[in-house]
């Protein structure tokens, strides 16, 4: 069971209440596809991913970015139960989507960068630590059902 301090709980709720899922989701996913281009292997049906500009303008990427953020929302609302909350999604990513779980860390890092860019000075070291701890639990939960 993950132990969360009051500061960590408050920080996670605060961050997610202040971000626009329709902006941050697409920004994080498109950044991931640009910075780590091998992740594009999972999106061959998404059309034009030829360069950074097309990725950032791609409607399917944007839509999927938003879906991912809403997936994170499940963890935000159930911080004491994340293993169970993500079990189904983990099975999906393993058995149906065949996503290498190392990729979860890559998109997590891109999301951290996007959040840092939005919050600036407010994204202190302590806030970053709480956010990365939350994402580490998400990443671990998402990799748990792989077999």
């Amino acid at each position, binding site marked *: 069971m993950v132990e969360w301090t009051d500061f960590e709980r408050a920080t996670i709720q605060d961050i997610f209440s202040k971000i626009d899922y329709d902006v941050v989701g697409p920004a994080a996913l498109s950044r991931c596809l640009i910075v780590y281009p091998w992740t594009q292997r999972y999106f061959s049906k998404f059309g034009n991913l030829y360069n*950074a500009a097309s990725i950032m303008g791609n409607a399917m990427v944007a839509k999927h970015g938003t879906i991912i953020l809403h997936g994170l929302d499940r963890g935000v609302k159930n911080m004491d139960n994340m293993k169970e909350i993500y079990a189904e999604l983990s099975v999906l990513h393993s058995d149906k989507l065949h996503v290498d779980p190392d990729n979860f860390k890559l998109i997590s890092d891109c999301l951290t*960068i996007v959040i840092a860019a939005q919050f600036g000075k407010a994204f202190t*070291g302590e806030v970053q630590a709480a956010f990365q701890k939350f994402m580490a639990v998400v990443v671990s939960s998402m990799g748990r059902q792989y077999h």
Partner: protein
Amino acid sequence: MSLTEKDKAAVKAIWSKISKSGDAIGAEALGRMLTVYPQTKTYFSHWSDLSPNSTPVKNHGKTVMGGVALAVAKIDDITNGLTALSEQHAFQLRVDPANFKILSHCILVVIASMFPKDFTPEAHVSLDKFFCCVSLALAEKYR
């Protein structure tokens, strides 16, 4: 994943914008690293004060960014350009190379928070590759 001419140009371009703030970036990144990855504190047990804005942290952040500046200057041959630093890290400091990735990540987070408009995805990918090359160069002499 070696640096293309496009990567080198992108790194030089963003470096020209951020280098004036080099000391602040280094201090912030190092302080952040010690907070977010407490295991890294094990390398600094000889410091009196490990808190983010302390003198040892600020001074050392400056030192680290000096190394980054050197790597930018030697971007056409980072491995050879950083030989002395690699030997220092390999034989004296003996920092586990896994930590280079950790500090690189913290530097990128600080750049994103201080220069959000300049740290575009294109700049990000080139800088990420650059820091990978720097990390590899630093580990070159380890074994």
